[in-house]
């Protein structure tokens, strides 16, 4: 019960800190002082207090979309293992619910972007949809391969991998994590795929889809985007951390992994430039190839050469 409670707290709070930390890391590399790591939270509160304005060309879908997509992400979060590798809801096939609930949230946000009839948002929607179609199968291949290894088809079987490992096992972990990191970058709209701090709407992917949103809607959309980043990081943490740790050690090491990932993302953003739009597809396809490597390694381990 305590673990489930902790998970809910983590799910709600860590996304803010993660984004704050990424921004702080970027500030550090840019020799700036940077805003406090609580700034995303302050922004959220500020936006929540504001009055909503809706374009007259939009309908109910546009108004509902941020709420639905936020609900979807929170719901997906219930299936993700966090402290001690336990999730709040643990059922067989949770991965399918997880992936498709997230897909639903994206579908709704694409619909709402299309509804504004803005040429920018249409462009952003088509880019986002395009990347998702590449990411989704790769994600399934990675997670399903690992599950095939442990033969337990629940989400918390992801960390079984450490116990069934030899050299091959470590390779599987490595490639699975690399694949998930790319997914994290794409889904979180970070450099080198997207530039979250740009004001240039022609180059945006995620941000351009929400140009017409403001106040509470904008707050919810940003919050759910950050939460999605946190969820994927949690998957990475689950793969990395061994089972059977005591509660507090597990909590601290979980947060440690999240901290490390945030700093890593911030450092990547500071060190490299964004890719050309055409090359982003190649980058996303790298995730697919990592996923296939994971699948082949698992096959190798299960069935031998």
């Amino acid at each position: 019960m305590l673990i489930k409670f902790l998970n809910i707290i983590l799910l709600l709070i860590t996304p803010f800190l993660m984004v704050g930390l990424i921004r702080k890391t970027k500030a550090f590399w840019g020799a700036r002082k940077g805003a406090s790591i609580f700034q995303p939270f302050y922004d959220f509160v500020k936006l929540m207090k504001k009055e909503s304005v809706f374009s007259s060309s939009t309908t109910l879908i546009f108004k509902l979309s941020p709420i639905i997509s936020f609900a979807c992400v929170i719901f997906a979060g219930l299936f993700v293992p966090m402290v001690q590798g336990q999730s709040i809801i643990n059922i067989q096939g949770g991965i399918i619910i997880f992936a498709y609930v997230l897909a639903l949230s994206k579908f709704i946000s694409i619909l709402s972007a299309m509804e504004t009839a803005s040429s920018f948002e249409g462009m952003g929607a088509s880019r986002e949809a395009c990347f998702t179609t590449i990411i989704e199968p790769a994600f399934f291949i990675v997670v399903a391969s690992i599950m095939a290894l442990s033969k337990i088809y629940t989400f918390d079987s992801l960390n079984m991998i450490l116990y069934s490992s030899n050299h091959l096992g470590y390779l599987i972990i490595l490639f699975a994590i690399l694949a998930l990191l790319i997914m994290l970058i794409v889904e979180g709209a970070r450099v080198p795929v997207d530039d979250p701090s740009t004001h240039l709407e022609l180059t945006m992917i995620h941000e351009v889809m929400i140009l017409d949103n403001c106040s509470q809607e904008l707050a919810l959309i940003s919050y759910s985007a950050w939460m999605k980043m946190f969820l994927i990081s949690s998957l990475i943490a689950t793969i990395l951390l061994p089972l059977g740790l005591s509660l507090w050690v597990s909590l601290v090491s979980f947060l440690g992994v999240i901290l490390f990932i945030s700093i890593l993302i911030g450092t990547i953003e500071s060190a490299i430039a964004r890719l050309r739009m055409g090359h982003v597809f190649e980058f996303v396809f790298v995730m697919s190839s990592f996923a296939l490597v994971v699948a082949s390694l698992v096959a190798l381990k299960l069935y031998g050469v």
Partner: protein
Amino acid sequence: MNYYTMKNSQRINLLDIPTIDFDSLVSQLSITNLRPIAFFGADWGENIKLFVSLADDEKGEILTSSALINKSQKEYNSITAQNPQYHMFEREFYEQFNIKPLNHPWLKPVRKNQDSYEFFEIEGEETHQVAVGPIHAGVIEPGHFRFMCQGEKVYNLEIMLGYQHRGVEDLIIKNPSNQLIESVCADSTAAYSIAYSEVMEALSNTKITNKAKLIRLFALEMERIAIHIGDMGAILGDIAYLMGKETFATTRTLVINTMLEITGSRFIRGLIKFGGVNFDISDKMIKKIIDTLNYVEKTTDKMTYAALNSSTVISRLEKTGYVSKKTAQELNMVGLMARSCALDLDSRFDFKNEFYSNIERKPFNATNDAYSRFKIRYKEIKDSIKIVKFFLDELKKFQNEDLYVEPNQLIANSFALSIVEAWRGELVHTATVDGEGRLSRYKIKDPSFNNWWGLSMALRNNVISDFPLCNKGFDLSYCGFDL
């Protein structure tokens, strides 16, 4: 052809400029291979007088001619149909005097009549138009950009400007002052102020001291260094290379703060005036400037090295927004952008400025793309730092000279043209004085006036998400164009 050959910033008598038949002037301009640098009309009583100045970059001379057109004449055969270099000039002339160039390929407003104008159209499957502006997302300056796209690929970009047309040319005639000219295009304050002062000094036959000239050129080069560094940071910022963005932004501050110490303004306002300059540079200050510039050069070297060794940066810059030399020539592109397209035009050297004659003109290995536009800024920063040091050294020779000479009255019936290499390129100010010694026409041609079409060409067959990168590479002025 009948021309009056003049030098840069030289006063000539209006009556000395040959006036030839309009039709024969037009037909001769269609076939000449000299670049037009001024093409404008002036109210001439019953008539309209058309002045044309061509640049002979080889000899460093300016050829000026004119034609009288009766106000009842409403059309003529366009020059642009044969010689595309006159495209924007003829559109501007049509807008100001309503004499229609027949067969002009794309006759639409330049600055006025924002309500009704045509755009290129694209039709077909998967094609779409993206209209951006006139209000800029970063709330900088207003301009309307219309992209004709198929998917991500841009077939054509059409640019509409004029949203901040202030009627500067008329304002200057009523109230000629450096304060006014400095605010026309604030990122080229020094260049504008120098061009204005030189025109006025030529028209009034005022001889300013060498010391004042050197301080002006020093300001011009410092402006170039500061803006180029800022632009390099902005280019890297647009491709989300944060380290470069932050480093160049802080480095630029060092340069503009130096100008703040000298002039009291980071953007060099109030330094240059008709007759001389307002502020001196002390020996102590010279030492400080040189120290700062050494540091700036070191930082710029390091950061440029790091950026150009990053594969992601190179991959974004290379082959993005290609403009061929032929296109640059046809569009009459000038200055920095022309040089980045392998068209070596630099009015500092072409028009034989006395102080630049001892400076080596270094070639640039242009690749015509965004990489070229990044690299040429780096090259020019290095060159300008050398030039500034040379000027500061020269300045010691003229220590005892005055900063300011009381200007003379404007001489009646004069014409003068001044070309200054602003950081964007060739800035041309032309002025005429009437029979009573008053300014009667003042014409400004900003380098952006030539180069905006270059941006449009750069975007063809590129992806739409590369627009900001190309735009920053060109970094053209809206207000300098809109006037």
